[in-house]
């Protein structure tokens, strides 16, 4: 069974601080997806990283896929209260097998 470990599980920071969330596995994935979920809603896709070493930026969010395609990180610069939510990573295998989800990192940004 493939596993994706996310760390930390919980993170509470002040507005303006930087943070990094990690998603690690011993398995290789063809791509990694990051989702954000707000209370009472379903997860929403933020980004997909496909190539080993790839870096994608989405405003203040920077996503990186590890060179070996086994891990990924999400870095948020100058966090805002609007960044509060549950961040989920999901690994995709080749073919159409279901995604493997991590358990998530719950982020709280305090104004």
């Amino acid at each position, binding site marked *: 069974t493939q596993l994706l470990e996310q760390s930390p599980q919980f993170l509470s920071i002040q507005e303006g601080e930087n943070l990094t969330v990690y998603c690690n596995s011993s398995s290789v994935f063809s791509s990694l997806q990051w989702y954000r979920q707000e209370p009472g809603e379903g*997860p929403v896709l933020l980004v997909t990283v496909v190539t080993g070493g790839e870096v994608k930026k989405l405003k203040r969010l920077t996503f990186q896929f590890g060179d070996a395609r086994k891990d990924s990180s999400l870095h948020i610069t100058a966090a805002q209260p609007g960044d509060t939510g549950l961040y989920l990573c999901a690994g995709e295998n080749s073919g*159409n097998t*279901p995604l493997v989800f991590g358990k998530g990192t719950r982020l709280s940004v305090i104004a």
Partner: protein
Amino acid sequence: DAGITQSPRHKVTETGTPVTLRCHQTENHRYMYWYRQDPGHGLRLIHYSYGVKDTDKGEVSDGYSVSRSKTEDFLLTLESATSSQTSVYFCAISRGVNSGANVLTFGAGSRLTVL
């Protein structure tokens, strides 16, 4: 909006009663999924479908059945609900890798409480 709706959004039922949750999509996506989300466990796959009448089990399929008689609807049934099935259930859809992306679009969730 992605065109995926779940019903009911909230349900309270008693142990031993049957429950059916419905997922309806207007996107004509081939793949549909049912997940449950519980504190400390994240999202866990219950069942999924890769076409009409084509379904497969996920990691937590015991106590659940599904049916997909047409592309737009994917039903999740709890034949005899138990308290351990109290959870938030999410439906998701995707076009699949062959259509360019295996990314998921989620519904808003159905909160089920089994007393």
